[in-house]
């Protein structure tokens, strides 16, 4: 299309048709005051502050909603315009209450800023404030709508960005205000307390409930959210070294745009919790008591070295954390492999589906990992399976809801529970728990019958399609319907929606933690290959990561079976590569994973365990068993930021720093590598974890160490091809595709991907004693086991109990009422919880929090979908 040429303030400008006059001006460095405009929201032209004048016609128009036209001659600051603008501000101010002095928006208020810029002081108008009640019953958001200037940014953010729809204008004219349905308080509405509207509000009408501080922070610094694997960019405001508020970053191309979720926005107050560790501790006479860093590190170094010498390298293990940075994870595994000579290194994300992730890594040779979430909005069709992103990774939920509601992308949700996405879906497949394998194979068989396979893709990139077809055509579709509980008509409808399209799969913990997870993933890879849904944009596998650096910790090799760069340990070539770089002979013994570490400790084979940033006593099932195992150790070192169940059992406690108190880097679920600098200093004598690891390795190995984080980063980007772009372009870069498969190469060289055999899983016999299936759910307010989020004052005030959801008919059968207490038991233990009854569950499903399932004997995930019985107590 032909560019439009016009003049703004005498400057000749050319821009694409459809550009608004406002954007044309802003892009050319011409400032125009606005109150209702935001680059991430649809323009509405509500405030009229962006008025400009076309000199040729004398027309005055709101520039944010006027598209450019040929030969316009725009003045943004003519005397007429200035008068109009000042009058608009005077009118808004006459409608405003006189509470500026006590308003926590302080000098961040855009109304005050603009009034000051335009030189509007006293309005000389009759003041007509519209007093409304103040609402502050929830611990997150205060609404004082008398300060509302009706810009509708909050409403548009709520509808267009987070797609919740909790608020809209109610009533008309002078009475009109953003309101919930039936004017209920926010906590009685569908509001998720993401706080996105609060950050958008130009005035103090919406503000953050802050018990510690009122007013604007002294300093604002950018960082990355410390919770889930989305890795939202945010700015933290601090006062005297304490973090007082959090907002989405103002940068344009972040993963979260202008949104956050309740955790990112409101739960970071846990960082100020009194349980923070501020100095190293050593156990003396049975008690943990303060020590200097020198003393503590000496005990750790001596202890590890002497245990290694006495019992051999296999007697020492390292359990790191996917909450720690990539620099720390790299150092951590290097200490284990190079200094202690063991592959016994793992991290806490083991339970979030390691076996499934390893399976994809191996089948795709590490390829297809670059998955920008923005691709979901451009996808042809989305298939969400075993994922509840509106709770686990809310920003992923926003992308999916936007894709469906705004971009009209067909969305299929396969989940036994009616998740928050179901109302936005085109189809909901309410399958029986653990029957995903059958469902996926069944859909593949139907697509094959319809000849919906992408044959040119299959020919170019894959092998083994024929045997795959053979076994698919032998599939008994009636049995599939019986096992999954999904009717044939619905299966066919799904196949129809998928037919001929490239699929974007969103995969969550319903698959990652399921006992048949690896088989389900195998089936999904086959389906993706058959439909040509891999390699390229807007399709493929979007894997939900629970912790913010889950992907990064794996990339750094903080796991027993992969070396840095996700290179399999059993691969000789990769082992040689690292042996040469590190100048060591790597132990040929396969290392212990998290579960095997506990088992070896129980057997007395493991003597020393170094835990960094994990709380296995809370995060793993069977806490008593873990406690006994840990008690048997000769040396337990725990490096953490909080006093936890686990630090209480340690011999040495090392006080680390939270992400906001150190420099570091996280890699998110998309493959985006994001570095950050400290916002505040660590409490007391606590230190950044990479510094602790560096000091320790120097004590143990007489090596030079790194001394600066830049040096660690340089080594990572030089040595790990996947991270070769890391740090090249400032704070944000992407991992590089390093797969050897033809599919992921621009010139189509390399190997082809194989279809794997169709497996049908045996859904084990129904056990009368344990008739219910427990599905592990998540709550939006908490992350994982909740070690950190439950220390947030705001989250505590919100008072969530983690109830068990039971299908209402089952509830009636067991004579349960909402609020009754039940004991839920599996053969491995029991927990007690309150009950809520739900209509939208399949019969025989109960949802619970972690704490019941047995530790996996082998590498099987199997933490989800265990069988339980329910008793009223």
């Amino acid at each position, binding site marked *: 299309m032909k560019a439009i040429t016009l003049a703004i303030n005498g400057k000749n400008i050319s821009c694409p048709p459809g550009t608004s006059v406002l954007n044309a001006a802003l892009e050319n460095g011409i400032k125009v005051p606005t109150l209702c405009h935001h680059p991430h929201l649809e323009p509405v032209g509500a405030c009229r502050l962006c008025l400009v004048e076309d000199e040729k016609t004398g027309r005055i128009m709101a520039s944010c909603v006027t598209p450019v036209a040929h030969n316009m001659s725009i003045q943004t600051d003519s005397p007429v315009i200035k008068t109009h603008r000042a009058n608009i501000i005077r009118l808004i101010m006459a409608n405003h209450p006189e509470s500026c002095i006590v308003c926590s928006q302080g000098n961040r208020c855009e109304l005050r800023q603009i009034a000051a810029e335009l030189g509007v002081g006293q309005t000389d108008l009759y003041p007509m404030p519209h007093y409304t009640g103040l609402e502050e019953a929830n611990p997150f958001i205060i609404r004082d709508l008398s300060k509302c200037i009706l810009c509708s940014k909050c409403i548009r953010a709520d*509808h267009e960005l987070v797609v919740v*729809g*909790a608020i*809209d204008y109610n*009533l008309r004219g002078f009475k009109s205000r953003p309101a*919930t*349905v*039936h004017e209920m308080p926010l906590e009685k509405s569908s509001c998720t307390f993401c706080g996105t509207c609060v950050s958008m509000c130009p005035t103090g009408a919406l503000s953050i409930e802050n018990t510690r501080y009122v007013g604007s922070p002294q300093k604002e610094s950018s960082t990355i959210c410390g919770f889930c694997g989305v890795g939202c960019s945010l700015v933290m405001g601090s006062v005297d070294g304490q973090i007082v508020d959090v907002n989405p970053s103002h940068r344009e191309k972040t993963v979260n745009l202008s949104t956050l979720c309740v955790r990112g926005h409101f739960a970071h107050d846990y960082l100020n919790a009194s349980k923070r560790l501020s100095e190293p501790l050593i156990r003396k006479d049975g008690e943990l008591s303060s020590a200097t860093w020198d003393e503590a590190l000496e005990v750790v170094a001596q202890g590890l070295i002497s245990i290694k010498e006495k019992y051999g390298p296999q007697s020492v293990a390292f359990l790191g954390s996917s909450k720690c940075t990539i620099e720390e994870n790299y150092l951590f595994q290097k200490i284990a492999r190079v200094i202690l000579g063991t592959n016994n290194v793992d991290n806490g994300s083991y339970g979030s589906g390691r076996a499934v992730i390893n399976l994809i890594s191996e089948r795709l040779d590490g390829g297809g990992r670059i998955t920008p979430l923005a691709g979901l909005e451009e996808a042809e069709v989305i298939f969400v399976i075993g994922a509840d992103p509106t709770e686990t990774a809310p920003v992923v939920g926003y992308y999916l809801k936007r894709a469906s*509601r705004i971009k009209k992308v067909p969305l299929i949700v396969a989940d036994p529970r009616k998740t928050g996405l179901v*109302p936005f879906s085109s189809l909901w497949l309410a399958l029986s728990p653990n029957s995903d394998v059958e469902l996926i194979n069944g859909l593949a068989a139907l697509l094959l019958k319809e000849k919906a396979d992408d044959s040119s893709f299959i020919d170019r990139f894959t092998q083994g399609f024929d045997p795959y077809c053979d076994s698919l055509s032998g599939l008994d579709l009636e049995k599939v319907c019986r096992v999954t509980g999904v009717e044939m008509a619905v299966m066919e409808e799904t196949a129809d929606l998928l037919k001929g399209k490239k699929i974007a799969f969103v995969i969550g913990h319903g698959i990652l933690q399921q006992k048949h997870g690896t088989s389900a993933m195998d089936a999904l890879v086959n389906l993706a290959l058959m439909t040509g849904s891999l390699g390229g944009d807007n399709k493929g596998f979007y894997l939900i990561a629970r912790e913010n650096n889950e992907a990064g910790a794996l990339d750094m090799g903080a796991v027993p079976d992969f070396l840095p760069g996700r290179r399999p340990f059993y691969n000789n070539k990769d082992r040689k590569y690292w042996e040469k770089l590190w100048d060591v002979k790597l132990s040929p013994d396969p290392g212990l994973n998290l579960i095997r570490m506990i088992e070896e400790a129980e057997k007395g084979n493991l003597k020393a365990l170094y835990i960094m940033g994990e709380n296995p006593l809370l995060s793993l099932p069977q806490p008593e068993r873990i406690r006994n195992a840990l008690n048997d150790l000769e040396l337990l070192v725990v490096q953490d930021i909080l006093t936890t169940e686990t630090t209480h059992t340690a011999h040495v406690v090392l006080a680390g720093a939270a992400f906001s108190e150190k420099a570091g880097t996280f890699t998110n679920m998309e493959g985006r590598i994001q570095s950050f600098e400290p916002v505040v200093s660590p409490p007391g004598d606590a230190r950044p974890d990479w510094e602790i690891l560096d000091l320790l390795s120097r004590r143990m190995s007489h090596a030079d160490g790194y001394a600066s984080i830049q040096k660690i980063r340089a080594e990572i980007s030089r040595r790990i091809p996947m991270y070769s772009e890391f740090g090249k372009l400032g704070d944000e870069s992407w991992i590089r595709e390093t797969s050897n498969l033809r599919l992921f190469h621009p010139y189509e060289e390399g190997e082809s991907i194989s279809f794997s055999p169709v497996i049908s899983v045996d859904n084990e016999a129904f056990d009368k004693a344990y008739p219910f299936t427990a599905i592990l759910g998540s709550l939006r307010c908490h992350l994982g086991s909740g070690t950190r989020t439950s220390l947030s004052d705001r989250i505590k005030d919100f008072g969530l109990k983690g109830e068990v959801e039971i299908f209402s008919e089952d509830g009636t059968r067991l004579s349960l009422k909402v609020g009754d207490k039940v004991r839920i038991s599996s053969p491995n233990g029991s927990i007690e919880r309150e009950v809520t009854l739900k209509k939208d569950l399949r019969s025989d499903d109960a949802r619970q929090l972690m704490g019941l399932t047995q530790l996996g004997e082998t590498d099987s995930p199997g933490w989800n979908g265990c069988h339980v019985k329910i008793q009223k107590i």
Partner: protein
Amino acid sequence: MTQPKEIDWGLMEATINKHRGETWALIPLLQEIQAVFGYIPPDSIEPISEALHLFPSQVQGVVSFYAGLSLKPKGKYVVRVCRGTACHVKGGQSILRVIKKELGLDEGETSPDYQFTLETVACLGACFLAPTMMVNSTYFGKLSPPKVTSVLNQYGKDKGEDE
């Protein structure tokens, strides 16, 4: 009748279902509900929004924006008194005063027996008949206090007899 009609939720569902999936049809659907039920029952907001793929807050926003739609049940007879300029000049104020007194209602109120609702309107568009009022869809013009009383009596007499 001393109660607004019990809502026939089956009928409501059928009415809503006619427009399932038709996001554009919000206003026609609301008008239909208003016509059939006399108002938009607040509990219908949820099913309406679900059927039309809208947010409940959006539906409420539309209902509360238009004077022709109401979330409260109205009386059998809705009396609309004009407050426009022409009617004002011709003594519309005292007409309103008389009606308020006769019905014992203030603007926007409905009698406890759901017989009358009193509303005011900016202009009924019949200025040549000023001062004016409407009862449901019937116009009354060139009003005087005695005429008002007789009109109201006409409707008052109906009390108790249905339709």
